[in-house]
C-alpha cells in the first residue's frame, strides 16, 4: 500500500513532465503523420508530380489492331489482290545498347541449356538472318531511341528465326503487305497501293474506302517482365476488316485476251491494243485486256502511260464501227431498211465535201447491208444524210456517245460529241462513219450491246458485289436499262452485221459452228502532240456471237500498227478470243439459218 502510495506520489510529481513529453511526442507524431498523410494525399489523391500517371503510362501499351484490307476477287473467287502478314523488325536501342550479354535457351548436344551470348555475337547472328551487313545492324541497334526499324517486310519464316535469337530490345511487329497473285493479269484494273496503304490506281484507288476497313485499338497494362498484367486495364476496340470486292471478270479469259492482244500488238508493232469481252445479257465485263499491263506487285516496271485501263481511259475516233449507229438510226426513223437500194458513185460529193471509200469502185447499186458489209463511207453518208443534223447528234447521244460509263475505274473517258450546231461542214457527215467524234472502247461495246440485246442498253458492270467479312454478299444493283431502238430494228441491224461476215468483207470473223456478226473499224488517228494531220491508224473489230441469241461481244482495238493499214486484220485475234469465250461458257453451237442479206442490189 505504502509502496503504492509512494509511487502514486512520485507519479503525481512527474505528471507535468510526462504530460509535456507526451504532448510533445504526440504532436511530433501527428506532425509527421500529417506530413506523410499529406504527401500520401498529394501523391495518391492529387497526383501532383504526375507520378501515378507516368507509371500507368509506363505500363500501358496501346496497340493499333490493323483492319485487314479486303481482297479483290474475280467472278469465280480467284484472288486478284489480297493482304498477307509481313514483319518489321524493330529495336529498342536503349535496351539493346546497355545489354552487354544475355542468356538464352539453346539445345546443346540434345539438352536444353542456358547459354550466355555476347551482344556482338547477337548482332552478327541478327545480321546473318536478315541478310544485312553486320556494321549496318550494329549502327541500327545502337543509340538512345526506343523505337527504330531495322528491317522491313520480312516473310514469316525470317521473323521466326529472328524471334528465336531472343536478343534483348529486338521486337517484331506485324504489318500487312498487299500481294497480287495473278500479277499483270488484270493488273491495270486492280491497280496498286502507294506505301502499301493507300490505293493509287485502278480499283484499289476507287474502292479504297470499302477495302480499307476501320482499324481497332487495344489498350493494356504490361509488367516489367513483358507479360500482360491480368487485373490491369484492358480495353479492346476490335478492328473492322474491309470488304472484299468481287468483280465480273474471269481471270482465265482475261489472261487469254491479254496474251492475244499482246501478241498482236508485238507482231504489228502497235502503240497499244485493248480487248473487251462483255456479256450481252447482263452488261458484265468479262475481260478488259491491255497491252503491257502493269504487274501491281511492281508497277514501276512499266511506263506510267501503260498503268491505266485504256479500254475506258482512251477515247479515240472509232471509225467505221460507228456505221452501225447510223444504220440503226435510219432504220428506226423509218428512213431506210437493210435491203434499201443506193446507187453509189465512185466518189460522193455533198455540200462541197467529197467522200471516198477505202477501195476504188465504179458506180454500184448497193443495199444498206452491202454498205455496212463493205464499210463504204460514201453509202453511209448517203443514207445518213436522210437524218437531220440534230437527229444524227441525238442518235449518237442515245447510243451513249459522250456519256462516260461508270464501272468504278478512275479517269473514265466520256469521249467528245460536239453539239450539232457546232459541227463544221465536213464533221456533220464524218460523224456518220466515226470520224470527228471520239469515244472509248467500252462506249463502242455498250452501243453494240444494246443492238445485241434487242435494243435495250444495259450499263456495263465491273464490280459484281461487295462481300462483308462475315460472308454476306451485297450485290451492286444494275443501273437502269434503257430502250434505244425497237426489237425489230435491233434484229435488222444484227442481220446486217451477220451478213457482213457471211456475205461482206469480214469473212475472217467467222467461227466454225457459231453464227457471228461483226463490224470492222479503221480510223485515222490524230497526232498526240496536237500537230495537224494524222499519225497512223486505229484498227478495230467488234463482233457478237452466237447470232441466234447473242451472248457475248468482243472488241479488239489496235492503236497505230506499223505497216500498210490495208494488210492489217484483227480477225484472227477476234476469232480466237471469241471462240475461247464461247467454249469457256459452254455456249451451244448456233441453230437456224444464218442471215445472208444481198450486198448488191439487183
Amino acid at each position, binding site marked *: 500500500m505504502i509502496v503504492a502510495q509512494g509511487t502514486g506520489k512520485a507519479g503525481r510529481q512527474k505528471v507535468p513532465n510526462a504530460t509535456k513529453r507526451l504532448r510533445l511526442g504526440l504532436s511530433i507524431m501527428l506532425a509527421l503523420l500529417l506530413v506523410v498523410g499529406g504527401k500520401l494525399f498529394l501523391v495518391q489523391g492529387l497526383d501532383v508530380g504526375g507520378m501515378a500517371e507516368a507509371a500507368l503510362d509506363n505500363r500501358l501499351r496501346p496497340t493499333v489492331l490493323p483492319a485487314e484490307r479486303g481482297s479483290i476477287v474475280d467472278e469465280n473467287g480467284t484472288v486478284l489482290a489480297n493482304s498477307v502478314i509481313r514483319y518489321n523488325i524493330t529495336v529498342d536501342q536503349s535496351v539493346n545498347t546497355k545489354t552487354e550479354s544475355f542468356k538464352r535457351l539453346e539445345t546443346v548436344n540434345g539438352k536444353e541449356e542456358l547459354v550466355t551470348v555476347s551482344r556482338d555475337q547477337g548482332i552478327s547472328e541478327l545480321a546473318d538472318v536478315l541478310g544485312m551487313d553486320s556494321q549496318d545492324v550494329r549502327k541500327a541497334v545502337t543509340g538512345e531511341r526506343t523505337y527504330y526499324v531495322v528491317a522491313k517486310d520480312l516473310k514469316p519464316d525470317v521473323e521466326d528465326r529472328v524471334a528465336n535469337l531472343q536478343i534483348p530490345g529486338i521486337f517484331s511487329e506485324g504489318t500487312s503487305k498487299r500481294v497480287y497473285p495473278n500479277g499483270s*493479269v488484270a493488273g491495270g484494273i486492280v491497280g496498286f497501293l502507294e506505301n502499301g496503304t493507300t490505293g493509287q490506281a485502278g480499283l484499289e484507288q476507287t474502292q479504297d474506302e470499302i477495302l480499307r476497313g476501320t482499324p481497332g485499338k487495344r489498350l493494356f497494362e504490361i509488367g516489367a517482365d513483358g507479360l500482360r498484367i491480368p487485373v490491369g486495364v484492358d480495353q479492346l476496340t476490335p478492328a473492322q476488316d474491309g470488304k472484299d470486292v468481287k468483280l465480273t471478270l474471269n481471270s482465265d479469259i482475261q489472261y487469254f485476251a491479254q496474251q492475244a492482244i499482246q*501478241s498482236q500488238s508485238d507482231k504489228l508493232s502497235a502503240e497499244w491494243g485493248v480487248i473487251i469481252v462483255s456479256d450481252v445479257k447482263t452488261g458484265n465485263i468479262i475481260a478488259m485486256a491491255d497491252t503491257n499491263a502493269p*504487274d501491281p506487285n511492281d508497277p514501276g516496271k512499266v511506263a506510267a502511260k501503260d498503268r491505266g485501263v485504256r479500254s475506258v481511259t482512251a477515247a479515240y475516233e472509232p471509225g467505221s464501227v460507228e456505221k452501225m449507229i447510223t444504220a440503226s438510226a435510219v432504220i428506226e426513223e423509218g428512213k431506210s431498211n437493210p435491203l434499201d437500194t443506193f446507187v453509189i458513185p465512185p466518189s460522193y460529193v455533198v455540200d462541197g465535201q467529197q467522200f471516198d471509200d477505202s477501195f476504188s469502185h465504179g458506180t454500184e447499186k448497193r443495199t444498206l447491208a452491202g454498205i455496212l458489209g463493205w464499210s463504204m463511207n460514201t453509202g453511209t453518208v448517203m443514207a445518213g444524210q436522210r437524218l437531220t443534223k440534230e437527229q444524227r447528234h441525238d442518235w449518237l447521244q442515245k447510243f451513249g456517245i459522250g456519256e462516260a460509263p461508270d464501272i468504278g475505274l478512275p479517269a473514265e473517258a466520256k469521249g467528245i460529241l460536239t453539239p450539232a450546231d457546232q459541227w463544221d461542214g465536213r464533221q456533220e457527215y464524218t460523224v456518220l462513219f466515226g470520224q470527228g467524234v471520239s469515244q472509248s472502247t467500252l462506249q463502242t461495246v455498250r452501243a453494240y450491246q444494246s443492238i445485241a440485246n434487242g435494243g435495250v442498253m444495259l450499263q456495263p458492270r465491273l464490280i459484281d458485289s461487295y462481300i462483308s467479312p462475315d460472308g454476306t454478299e451485297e450485290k451492286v444493283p444494275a443501273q437502269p436499262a434503257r430502250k434505244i431502238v425497237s426489237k425489230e430494228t435491233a434484229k435488222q441491224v444484227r442481220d446486217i452485221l451477220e451478213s457482213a461476215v457471211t456475205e461482206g468483207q469480214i469473212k475472217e470473223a467467222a467461227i*466454225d459452228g457459231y453464227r457471228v456478226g461483226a463490224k470492222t473499224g479503221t480510223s485515222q488517228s490524230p497526232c498526240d502532240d496536237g500537230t495537224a494531220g494524222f499519225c497512223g491508224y486505229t484498227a478495230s473489230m467488234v463482233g457478237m456471237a452466237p447470232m441466234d441469241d447473242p451472248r457475248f461481244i468482243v472488241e479488239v482495238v489496235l492503236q497505230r500498227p*506499223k505497216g500498210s493499214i490495208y494488210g492489217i486484220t484483227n480477225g484472227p485475234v477476234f476469232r480466237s478470243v471469241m471462240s475461247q469465250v464461247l467454249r469457256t461458257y459452254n455456249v451451244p453451237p448456233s441453230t437456224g439459218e444464218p442471215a445472208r442479206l444481198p450486198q448488191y442490189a439487183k
Partner: protein
Amino acid sequence: MSTAAVKNLTLPAGRRVQEESPRKARTPLSLVRSMPKKRRAPFVVLCFGMLAVALMAVLVLNISVSTAQYQLVKLRSEQTALTKQNQDLTQQVQNFEAPQNLAAKASELGMVASTGKGQIDLSTLTVSGKAKPAVKGDTAGAVIAAPAVPGQLNVVPPASSSDPLESRKPADTGKPADSKKSGDSKKAKAPAAAAKQAAVLNGGTIPAPEQKAPGQ
C-alpha cells in the same frame, strides 16, 4: 485530465482507487470466470490459419492466372505460327494457279493449245465445226510475265526460259522473267527494239515493215 492520465499511466494508483470504492459501498463479490483466456489460443490459431489460407489462395490464384497467361501467350504464338504457315501455303497455291504460270508449266510439259474446235450436238447428233489437231511447236505468242510476288518468283520457271530462241537475244543475263519484262518496257520506249522482239516472238511471221510515225 490529470487524474485520468494518472489512472491510465500508473497501475498501482488505479488499483488503490478501485480498492477504495468498495469500502464506501461494498458490492457483493462474485466469481468471474476467466473463459476468454482459455479461448484465446484457438482463436489465434484460427486467425493464423485463415491468414495462411488466404495467402495460399492468393498464391494459387496468382499462379493459375499467370499460368493461364503463359498458356495464352503460347496458344497465341501457336495460332500465329499456323496462320503464317497457312498463308505461306495459300500463296504458293495462288502462285501455281496464276494463268501465266499455269501456261508456262503446261508448255514446259510439252502441251500445246488447240486452235480449231468442233462441237458434237448430242440431241441432234450433228457435228459442227472442224476440229484441228494442235500443232507441236506452234508459237504461243507473247509471254505474260509471271507475277512478281516477292519470294515466289522461283516457284515456277517463267515460260520464256524454255523458248529455244531466247538465246538469240543479245545480253540476256538477268532472270528470264526480268528480261522479258524489261523487254516489254523497252518496247514502249523504242519501237525499233519492239519490232526486233516481235520477229523473235512470232516465228514464221514476217514482221510488218518498220516505219516511224510522223510526230514521234
